[in-house]
């Protein structure tokens, strides 16, 4: 991979995780447990889809092969998606939705902080804008961790169960890949190890306050979202999300 390919790969990682999280949240439209939560989830989803568009537009510009952001989002197969495994997991019960969102928001927040002073001006611009929005996302999802984790015995039990179930997907959130190390050396982002330490600190401090047990560090397993080896959950999500674009390619309205 040359340097441009690596940049594009990085842009896709950022864009795809935002896109897939946004899509998962939008599945809850009309199904959220309360009207305020419905508004909040749709707002977060909208922010993320907007951010995904910014990342994918820039990726399309750098790719320069005639594809635009829509084509990248709607006509790319599963193995070419670079999102985190965590965010493609189904909404499950509300505890799972909350825990997934919190773990992602914390990762997203520190990741964007690390891109604020990127040597690539466009990356820095997109990240700075997104960071303002994600600060709100993280605050909201942290509050739900506290409220449900430190709530009733029953809500605590369900949150702990959701955390234990989803924790195995955090391996790629707290491991620095060789590629990220190279991107750091090229000045694209700040030290990825520092970002991961910050993620761990944020997660630990919220879990402690939420009276939830921190599971032991997640082990490596053979799947990896950023390498395009996804769980069985991404395919059906994309089939749904891309069905219109695939049935009517290049449709305009």
């Amino acid at each position: 991979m040359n340097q441009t390919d690596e940049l594009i790969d990085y842009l896709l990682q950022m864009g795809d995780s935002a896109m897939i999280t946004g899509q998962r949240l939008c599945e809850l439209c009309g199904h959220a447990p309360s009207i305020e939560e419905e508004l909040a989830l749709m707002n977060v989803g909208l922010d993320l889809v907007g951010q995904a568009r910014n990342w994918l537009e820039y990726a399309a510009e750098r790719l320069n092969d005639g594809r635009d952001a829509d084509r990248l989002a709607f006509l790319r197969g599963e193995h070419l998606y670079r999102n985190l495994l965590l965010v493609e997991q189904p909404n499950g019960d509300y505890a799972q939705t909350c825990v997934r969102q919190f773990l992602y928001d914390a990762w997203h927040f520190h990741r964007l902080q690390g891109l604020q002073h990127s040597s690539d001006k466009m990356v820095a611009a997109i990240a700075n804008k997104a960071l303002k929005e994600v600060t709100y996302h993280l605050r909201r999802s942290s509050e739900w961790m506290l409220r449900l984790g430190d709530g009733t015995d029953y809500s605590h039990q369900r949150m702990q169960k959701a955390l234990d179930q989803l924790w195995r997907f955090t391996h790629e959130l707290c491991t620095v890949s060789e590629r990220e190390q190279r991107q750091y050396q090229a000045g694209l982002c700040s030290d990825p190890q520092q970002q991961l330490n910050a993620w761990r600190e944020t997660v630990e401090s919220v879990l402690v306050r939420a009276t939830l047990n921190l599971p032991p560090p997640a082990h490596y397993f053979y799947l990896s979202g950023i390498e395009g080896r996804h769980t069985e959950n991404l395919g059906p999500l994309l089939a749904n999300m891309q069905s219109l674009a695939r049935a009517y390619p290049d449709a305009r309205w």
Partner: protein
Amino acid sequence: MHAGELIASDWCGHRAKAEDLPKAWSLMEQVMDPEVPVVSLVDLGIVRDILFQDGRLKVVLTPTYSGCPATEVIEQRVRQALECAGYATPYLEQRLAPAWSSQWITEQGRQRLLDYGIAPPQEKSGPVPCPQCASLDTEPVSEFGSTACKALYRCLRCKEPFDYFKCI
């Protein structure tokens, strides 16, 4: 096609001149935000700059939120306002950096929001005053309201719910 309508015209709008810039700004002051129709794009700080380039006007816009669905409508309205005023094919630029900040909302914009029943963004900490009765006895209901830029509050004195324009 009705009688008297022009099929084609050799009039294609006048070329913009540097003297047109103040007029263009006052035009932008008349373009209202599609979601909060009492504040203009200038009040909100979305219009960052108006320049004069190769005989065309160039308007620089900074979107408020990444996913704000009003972004496209705003572009359309800006284009329409300028074209209706006779500025042919204005050039629009989306500028991401520096990211939009609620601090860019003008004093007039803040007053207009308040008059409309939306609490303007409050940069200093402390309670958000109720836009209806000015009571400080208010509480947040949700960090997210009817649009990306607003949070939902309620007043504990007059019991009215209200939107609060978030600080970002």
